[in-house]
C-alpha cells in the first residue's frame, strides 16, 4: 500500500478508496429503520421506484392518483412507491490477540473500513465496535451517517490496536447492549472460540440484524507447517496442548477447519446471513473485488 501525506488513509491507497466509494452493500433482507434513507424498503414510500397500485381511499394524496388509469377505468387508483429507508450497518472487529498473527488484524481493519465507507456513502447509519482486553467496554465508533463521518471512521480503524482475550461470542453480546436499530451486522473475526457462537447469532438475528460473518485466517492457520512433537501455546489464554507427530495430523486439522467454516456458514445462512472465509495473505483488493463481489456481498 502506498504511504505518504498525499494518501487519505493509511489503510488503503486513494485509488482503492475511490473504487470503494463506488460500491455499496447488498443486504439480503431489507432490514431498515423507519427513518428515511436510501434503501428501498417496501411499498408506500415516496421514492421514484414504482411498487404497486391500490384502491383510492378517502384522505389519500390526490397527487398519487394515476389519472391514466382513471381515464380508462373511471375508477381512481393510487400509485404506490417504494420506501427509501435508512439501514444500520454494524461493524464488529475482533481485535483480540489471536488476530495479531500475520496480517489478520490489518485485513480486518481494512475490510471494516471498506464496509463502513460503503455504508456511509449510501446514507446508512454506520457504527463500529472493536473487541479488545476489556469485554465490558469495547472500543466503539458511535452510530452516524453521512459522508463527513468517513474520516472519523478511518481514524477509528487506523487507531485500532490488538490485544486481549475476549471471545467473540462475549463481544457480540456486549455490542448488542450498545446497539439499537435494524440492518446488517458484519462480524470480522477468526471465529476461533471454544464458546457457543449460536446464541449471540440468535441475538443478532432477533435484533433485526443480518449476520454477515467474515472470517480472516492467517496462512499459518490455513496451511500449518508443523512437524514432529510440539507443544502449542494459545496466544490468548497461554494454555498448552501437546501434539505428537503433528505432520501426521494435518489432514485431520484441515478437516476440522473446514468443518468449523461449514458450521459458521450454516449458522449465518440459517439466519438470513452470509459467511466468507478469507486468508490474511490475500490482498484487500482480492477480498473485496474478487471474493466479496463474487459472493454478492457488495455491488460495484
Amino acid at each position: 500500500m502506498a504511504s505518504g501525506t498525499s494518501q487519505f488513509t493509511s489503510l488503503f491507497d486513494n485509488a482503492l478508496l475511490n473504487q470503494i466509494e463506488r460500491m455499496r452493500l447488498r443486504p439480503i433482507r431489507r432490514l431498515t429503520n423507519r427513518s428515511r434513507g436510501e434503501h428501498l424498503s417496501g411499498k408506500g414510500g415516496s421514492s421514484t421506484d414504482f411498487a404497486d397500485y391500490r384502491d383510492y381511499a378517502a384522505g389519500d394524496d390526490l397527487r398519487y392518483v394515476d389519472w391514466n388509469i382513471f381515464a380508462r377505468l373511471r375508477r381512481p387508483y393510487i400509485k404506490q412507491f417504494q420506501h427509501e429507508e435508512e439501514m444500520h450497518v454494524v461493524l464488529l472487529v475482533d481485535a483480540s490477540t489471536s488476530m495479531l498473527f500475520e496480517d489478520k488484524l490489518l485485513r480486518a481493519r481494512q475490510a471494516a473500513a471498506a464496509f463502513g465507507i460503503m455504508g456511509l456513502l449510501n446514507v446508512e447509519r454506520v457504527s463500529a465496535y472493536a473487541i479488545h482486553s476489556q469485554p465490558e467496554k469495547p472500543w466503539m465508533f458511535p452510530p452516524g451517517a453521512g459522508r463527513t463521518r468517513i474520516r472519523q471512521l478511518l481514524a477509528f480503524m487506523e487507531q485500532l490496536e490488538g490485544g486481549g482475550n475476549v471471545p467473540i461470542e462475549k463481544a457480540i453480546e456486549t455490542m448488542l447492549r450498545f446497539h439499537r436499530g435494524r440492518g446488517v451486522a458484519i462480524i470480522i473475526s477468526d471465529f476461533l472460540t471454544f464458546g457457543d457462537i449460536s446464541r449471540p447469532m440468535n441475538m443478532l438475528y432477533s435484533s433485526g440484524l443480518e449476520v454477515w460473518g467474515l472470517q480472516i485466517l492467517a496462512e499459518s492457520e490455513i496451511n500449518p507447517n508443523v512437524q514432529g512433537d510440539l507443544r502449542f501455546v494459545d496466544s490468548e489464554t497461554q494454555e498448552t496442548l501437546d501434539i505428537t507427530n503433528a505432520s501426521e495430523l494435518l489432514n485431520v486439522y484441515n478437516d476440522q477447519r473446514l468443518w468449523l467454516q461449514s458450521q459458521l456458514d450454516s449458522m449465518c445462512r440459517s439466519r438470513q446471513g452470509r459467511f466468507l472465509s478469507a486468508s490474511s495473505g490475500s490482498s484487500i483488493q482480492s477480498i473485496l473485488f474478487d471474493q466479496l463481489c463474487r459472493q454478492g456481498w457488495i455491488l460495484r
Partner: protein
Amino acid sequence: MRWPSFVNLFGAWFFLALIPLIILYFLKLRRPKMEVPSLVLWQSVVNDQRVNSPFQKFRRNLLLLLQIILLCLLVLALMQPFLSADAEVAQYMPVLIDCSASMAATDEITGKSRLELVKEQVREQIESLSGDQKMSLFSFSATGRRLTDFTSDRRQLLKALELLEPSDLPGQLDDVLRMAAAYTRTFPIETVTIMTDGNLPDQVDFELPFSLDVRRVDAGGPNVGITEMSARRSGPQEWEVFVRVSGSSVDLRGAELKFFENNVETNTQPIEVSNEEAERLVFPVSSAEARLLEARLIPTGFDSMAVDNSVWLTLPAARPLKVWTSPKLASWRHAIRVLSNIEQEDGTDEQPKGSDYDLIISDAANLGGAIAPVQVFVGVIPDDLKTMIEVKEDVDYVVDWNRTAPFLRHVQLADLEIGEQPRLASGLSAKELEELGYEVLVDGKAGPLLLQRREGLSVSYWFTFHTDRSTLPYRVGFPIIAANAVESALKQASLSEVSAAPTGVLPVISVEADRSYTIKTPDGQQIPATSTPAGTLSGIPAAKVGRYDILDGNDVATSVGTGLLNTTESSLKAVEAMRFTELTVAAEKSDKIDSDQPLWWTLALLAFGVMLFEWWYFQRARGAAA
C-alpha cells in the same frame, strides 16, 4: 499349539527395567513450544475420534512403544525361550557320530562333506540344549571313541565337535554301541541318536538296551575308488598284481590308474567304472627284491572321496620255501621234494637245526624250539588231547572229511585203510575238542583222524594216525595233501599271494629280532615299536591311508602301505534299515534333528530390526524437524 518354555526364568526380572524406561521417556520428552493464535482447531484435532483411535494412539508414542518392544524382546531373548520338540525330553542324550571314511564324501554342488552336514545338525542340537539336558558325544568308525562326558557345557561339546575329522577307516557300530550301552548302567538313557550317512553294515550283532534314532545324511557325489589290490606269484620272480576299481554312480565315470614301483611310475591305464561295472586290472611285476607298489587313481571328473584313490602293497623278496621234514617220514619228504622252489633240509637229525621254517612236517611233538607258521604232525596226539584220544591197534577207515578245508582240497579219502584206530574217550564229542581250539577235519570210525588248530597266524595239522600205517601214501591224494600244506605255508609266508593291507592295523612286518624301530605314519607321526624275538612287528595302528616307513634309527628298514580297500565305503551306499539281534531300526533321512527349537536368536534378530526401525524413525523425525 506349542507354547515356548524358558531356560532362564530369572531373566524376567529385567522386565522391571520398563519402569525406569517409561519414567526416563517422559522426563526426557521436551517438546518445542510453538505459539498459535488459538488452540481451538488443534484441540478439535486431538478430540477427533480418528486421532484417538488405537492406531493413532500408537503413533503418538511410537518411539516409546518401539523402545518398550525392544526391551521386551531383549528380555525375552535373555530368558532363552525354546519350543520343546517333545513333551518327553530326554535328559541324557548320547549322540554317536559316524566318522568313517565315507563321511568324507563331499557334495558336488555345495562342496560340503557329510561329516560337515552332520556337525551342523549336531551343533544346532547343542545350541538348543535346555538347562537340565546333558549330551555326550561319541565318534565311531572301525571302533568307538567317547569325545565328552555327559555335560550341558555347550562350549565343551562344540569344541569336541569341531575337532572331529573323518577317518580312513570303515564304519562299524558294534563297538560304539557297547560303549553307549555301558553308560545305561549309570545314566537313564532311553534313546541313542546315531548321526551317520548310513554307509554301515546292515547287520549288527548287538542287543539294543535302548531305542535307536538313526539320522542319515545322503549328501555326496559320484565316487571312484580302489577297492581291492593283491598280487599272486606267477613265477620265481614274477608277480601279477590285481587292482579292482569300483564306482558309486549309475553312469560310467572315467579315471586314470597309475601304477608305481618303489615310487617310480611304471604303468598307466584309463578306466571307466560305474556302480554296476567294476574294472579289474592286472599289472605284471618282475622282481626278486621286495617292492613297494602303489596304485594311484586320478579321476577325470568330480570325485567325492579322495581317501580311496591310493593303495599300497608290499611285495616280499623272492625266496624258496624253507621246509623241514622228519627223516622218518620218507613218504612226506619225497612228496615235498618234487615240488618246485622248495628248500628242504635233507639231514637225518631228529629235530630241526634251525629255528625258523615256513613248513615243518614232523612225527614228534617236540620240535626243539623250531617254529613255523604251518606245522604238520603225523601220528602225534596233541598233549592236551592225550587224555581224550587213545590210539588202538585196530583197522580204521574214514567216515567223513571236510572237503572245503584248504588242507584237504581236491583230496579223496574214501576207501582209505588205516592200521590204527584213534578213539575218542567215551562220552566226549567233537564239541569238547572244539572248546580246546581243535577242528576235526577227518572223522574216523571211533574218533578224529585229522585235527586242525589255529594259533594266531600259525596253523597246525595233527594226523592222529601215522600215515605210513595207512594206504594214504599210495593214494593220489597224498601228494595233493603235501602240495596243499606247501601252498598253505606259501600263503602264510606271503610267497604265493599277498594282499594290500586295509587301514586299521598294519600287517605283521618281518624285521630283525629284539630291536627298537620307529614307525613314521603318513601324517608325520612317529610311533616307537620293538620287534619280537621272532623278528616281527605287529599291532601297529594304521588309521590313515598311505605309506608307513619303519625306521631303524634314521634308516628306512622297510616300508608298507595301506588303503581303504572297502567296497561298502567306496560305494557310498546307505542302508535303509539295520538289523539288530531282535530289532530292525530304520535309518531315516533327515535334514534336521528333532530338537528343542531355541527362539532367543529370533527374538534378538527382531530386537535388532526394531532398533534399526527406531533409529530410522528417530532420524527421520529429526530431519523433518530440522
